[in-house]
Structures are given as C-alpha cells and as structure tokens.
C-alpha cells in the first residue's frame, strides 16, 4: 500500500493578466519508507511539488486540480486544523537555506519545543528531553547548551542538522527535503546527505529529496522523477534512470555531470535554457533544445508512457533507443 499517492496534480499561479501553470498533471506514488528523488533544472517545478504535498502553496498560487492522498486522505481538501495536525507531525519538511529557515529571535530550544508541544501533550521538561535525544541523533555536541542558543550563534551545517532534528522530532512517516545542501559548503554537503540517508533508513522514514544533483539522487534514492517545465518527463527506478536514461533531457543531464567528462575536456551542456512558465513552446516543451526533435515534437505534447522499466514522455523514444543500441554495437 502506498503512503502517498499523487494524481494529476496541477498548480497554477494567478498573475496580473494571465494564469500560469507551474505544475501540470503530476502523478506518482511513494511506498512506506521509500526514498524518491525529484530532479530537474531551476524552475522545473520541483520545489512547488514539495510545497504542494504539504498544501503550503500560498497566494497567488493554488492547486487547480488533482489529489494528494496521504494515507488515503486528500491533503488538498483538508481543513486548516487537520493540515496543522499533519504538518510537522506525520509529514515534515527540510527547507533549502538553513541560514534563513530558523527564526533569528527565538532560541533553538523554543523552536524545537514549540513543534513538539503543538502536536503532543507534553510537559516542557519531557519535550526538552526528546529534543536533546534528537539533537544527539544528528551528532550535535553538547545539545543541552544548544537549546539556549540563538540560530546566529551556530554554523550553517549545524543549523541544517538542527533542522533535520526538528524534522525527526515527532517520528514522521515522510520527510520532504528541498535541496537541503544547496546553501552549504561542499565539504559539509556530503556529511548532511549521509546523515539524512542514515536517519531515514534507521527510522524507516519515507523521503522525497528535491535536488538538481543527479549524483546525490543516485546515492540517496530508490526511485527518481525527472521534471521539466512543470511536467514529469521520466520516472522510474533510480538505477535504471542513471544507467540507461531514455528521455533526451535526462541523457543531457547525465552527460553534463563533470564525472562524464575527461579532465581537460570541455564540459558538455544542454544548449539553451528552460522556457519560462509564461512562454512554454507548443508540443514537447523540450523540443527547442532537443537534437532529435521532429515535426511531431513541435506540435503534439507527448503522453507519458511505460517504456521498458521506466515511464517516459517522448515521441522519439523508440528511435533513440535503437540508435543508442546501434552506437553501442559500433563501439
């Protein structure tokens, strides 16, 4: 049974003179304890997906249609009171930039205890003990002292650990992590990811990891969604997608990884930019940047179809596959 089931999720933004579609018919499932990566360039709709799952889209954005079933209960239709119960308790979120996520005028202790006491009937002392245990789990030294400190007294890496500890406070079933290491030093990024993976595995917590880093996705997740211009264009098991990408965009992303290039060689990149949401080209949104694009691609939007082990939205997937196989034979 799936923990989370998203069907045809569509999010729009009401702008001054037009309505822009930021997410277009997103569907996917997440099993209990499963780890899912969502990848794509900036503006693909990854973060909006993450926020929508907790019904955190605020004006001028709104969920236009679709449903988000968490334990068979639709998050989109939930009352504010029910949403409050869910948020931070069964579903927790880790934000992108730890430097601005914690409230600067409240102590770490206040921000941890308020979360616990918003969801459980606990005395301050009981809540404090739980907070200390969770801080130990994320390897924060002398947690008792940290509780009395303000965020500005701690480093970025330390703050993100605390945010992970807050996410784990109430033993959630799902953690949504929105680029949790983008704002951190490269040296700390790996530590934080390793910690997150370790804690999710040991506590059997489901994880939705939003990132643009395919390397991270391959290490951290079991399944992957690739997004482009508000749509899912390829979805499947992470191993299949990394080793045998079907969509030309996914192939481009993987070829653009520095590891795919020899030292001294020029880095490969996908030409052009992701279209802005107000100006999505007709047909396949990727067609202006795609070297395989045909007339069909320029006029008709490809449906997402099952192709082998993965689901992919590309008209030319058969031809590409055949060409790929031929090239491998030649080599």
């Amino acid at each position, binding site marked *: 049974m799936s923990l989370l089931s998203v069907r045809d999720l569509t999010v729009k933004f009401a702008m001054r003179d037009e309505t822009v579609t930021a997410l277009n018919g997103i569907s996917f499932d997440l099993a209990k304890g499963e780890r899912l990566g969502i990848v794509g360039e900036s503006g693909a709709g990854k973060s909006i997906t993450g926020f929508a799952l907790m019904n955190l889209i605020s004006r001028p954005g709104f969920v236009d249609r679709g449903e988000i079933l968490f334990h068979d209960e639709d998050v989109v239709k939930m009352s504010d009171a029910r*949403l409050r119960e869910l*948020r931070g308790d069964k579903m927790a979120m880790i934000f992108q930039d730890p430097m601005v996520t914690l409230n*600067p005028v409240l*102590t770490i202790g206040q921000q941890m205890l308020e979360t616990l006491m918003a969801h459980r009937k606990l005395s301050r002392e009981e809540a404090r003990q739980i907070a200390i245990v969770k801080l130990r789990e994320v390897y924060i030294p002398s947690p008792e002292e940290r509780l009395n400190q303000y965020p500005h007294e701690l480093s970025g890496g330390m703050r993100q650990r605390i945010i992970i500890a807050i996410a784990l406070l109430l033993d959630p079933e799902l953690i949504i992590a929105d680029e949790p290491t983008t704002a951190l030093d490269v040296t700390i990024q790996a530590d934080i990811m390793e910690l997150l993976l370790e804690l999710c595995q040991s506590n059997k917590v489901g994880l939705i990891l939003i990132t643009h880093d395919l390397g991270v996705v391959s290490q951290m997740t079991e399944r992957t969604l690739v997004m482009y211009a508000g749509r899912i264009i390829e979805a499947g098991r992470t191993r299949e997608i990394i080793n045998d990408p079907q969509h030309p965009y996914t192939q481009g992303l993987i070829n653009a990884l520095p590891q795919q290039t020899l030292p001294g060689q020029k880095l490969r990149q996908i030409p052009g930019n992701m279209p802005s949401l107000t100006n999505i080209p007709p047909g396949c949104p990727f067609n202006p940047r795609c070297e395989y694009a045909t007339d069909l691609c320029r006029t008709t939007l490809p449906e997402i179809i099952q192709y082998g082990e993965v689901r992919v939205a590309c008209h030319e997937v058969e031809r590409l596959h055949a060409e790929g196989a031929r090239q491998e034979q030649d080599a």
Partner: protein
Amino acid sequence: MFAYLVKRVFQAIAVMFVISLIAFAIQGNLGDPLRELVGQSVSEEVRQQLRDDLGLNDSFITQYLRFAGNALQGDLGTSYFFKEPALDVIMKKLPATLELVLGATVIIIGLSIPLGVYTAIKPDAIVSRIIMGISIVGISIPVFLTAILMIFVFSVEYGWFPSFGRGDVVHVWGYWETNFATADGWMHIILPSIALASIMLPLFVRLIRAEMMEVLQSEYVKYAVAKGIKPWRIYFVHALKNTLLPVITVGGVQIGTMVAYTILTETVFQWPGMGFMFLEAVNRVDTPLIVAYLIVVGFIFVVTNTIVDLIYGLVNPTVNLARMGA
C-alpha cells in the same frame, strides 16, 4: 555592556555640545536683550555700561564658554519675563508635557500594534481598507486642525470633554503634578493625548503593517507553518518580535519628535506645559527661556534615543551589547 554604555554617553555629550552651540548662536540673534531689561528712558552710556557688565561685548567664544560653564552647573540663564532661573521655569512645566506625551504614547502603542498586525494579516478585509484609508487622512491633517475639530465636536457640540487646561491635578513630588489621580484630570488629558497621537498613530500602523507583511513572507514564517504551529503563535511570537525590531528604532526618534509636536497641541488646548510656554517665550522674546527650552528638548531627545538603542540591544539577540564598543 559597560564599554557600549560609555561609548553611547560620549556620543550623547557630542550631540549635546552641538545643540548647545546652535541654541547659543540663536540667542545672539534674537533682538537686543537690553530692550527687554531696561526701559526707554535709560541713556546710551548706561546701556553701554550694562552691556559691559553683562558681558555682551565679549567675543562669541568667551560668551559661549561662559554660557556652557554655567549650563553645566544647571544654570541656563534667567527668564526675562518670569525673573526666575529658566531651568526652574521649564521644570515646572515639564511634568504636564511629559504626561501628555505619555498619554499619546500609550494610545499609539496600544492601538498601532493590534491595528498594524490585523491589517497585515488580512490586507484585503474591508476593515483593513477602512483602517488604511483613515490612516492616510490622519497623516494628512495637521495636529492643530485635528485638535480644533475635536474641541468643536466633543467639547462644544456634545460637551463630553473639557476643552482646555489640565483640570484637577494632584501634587506628587517636587514640581510633579499629575492628571492621572482624579477623574477630572483623566477627562482633561484624553482629548489632547488623542490630538497628539493623531499624527504618529497612522504612521506606526502603516510601519508595523509594512514590516509585518514582509516578515510574513519570510522563510522562517513558512517554516513555522510547515511545523504545524498555530496561527496566533506564528503571528504574535514568530512574526511580531521580528516586526518590532525596526519599529523600536523608529519609535525612539518619533517619541522625541512628539515632544516638539506638543507645542501645537498644548497651544490649542491651553495645556500648561513647556510647549505652550515656549510659544509664549517666543512672543515675549524671552531669549534665555527659548535657549533653555531648546537644550532641554535636545536632552530629552538624546536620552530617549540612547535608551531605545539599549532596549533594541536587549530585544535583538543578534546584537551583543557586551561585545559592542569593544
């Protein structure tokens, strides 16, 4: 903390020095003090003699040093009209003005926070639009006009409130007589306080609203929502504290400015405070009193700002007073 205090005190002294210099420079240019002191019949030789005796023929710097030396000992000259030390005259009037400012400050703090927070939380509500509309009107109408209108409506037409004076005051300590001890005193201070608050209140409502709306867009507020925190706690614990930090800084300056606005309010309501006294002193060309008023008001300004800065440091955890000034 101590180093910071010392630094602030030095700044305050520097500011007071500049204020005293300006006040003293004005003194030399406000007519001939001899005309105020002696009658028409005194001959020119006697006038010269008096000028020499009073030191009016000395150089500017000598005169200023004498003035500053006396000022440091609490002697700001003698009022020509009252024939009393100018500082004593002001000290007798000071409590009336401070109580008026206190009344206005209580109104401003009591109303601006709930109104500012409400209009920020519900920017599209009809009530919010009405509040914002009234605030524009409030900022636009000068204090003396508000005061006259209020007297016309509430004193003349309805007769609810007295239109002038302090009413029954009760002696507290030294020169201090308070309005807040009798019902009559309360009735007398209400209209002037509202009139004085009428300019600052809309300003603060708009300031708090703007700051609050910005804070509500911040990541930490979104994060608090994502943690399942109740709205009232997000508004009043997470957002309000961050909203008030910049408001405190502006507020300190505005309390000082309000002392200046008392000139208008006190004149309209015949309030026996130092603002009213100042206007009378200008009419009488009572130069020592004018200079003493400027210095006392400057002093109040400097003191309130220093206190506000200290409070800011105590409220904002990212400011470390112990390390500042080091």
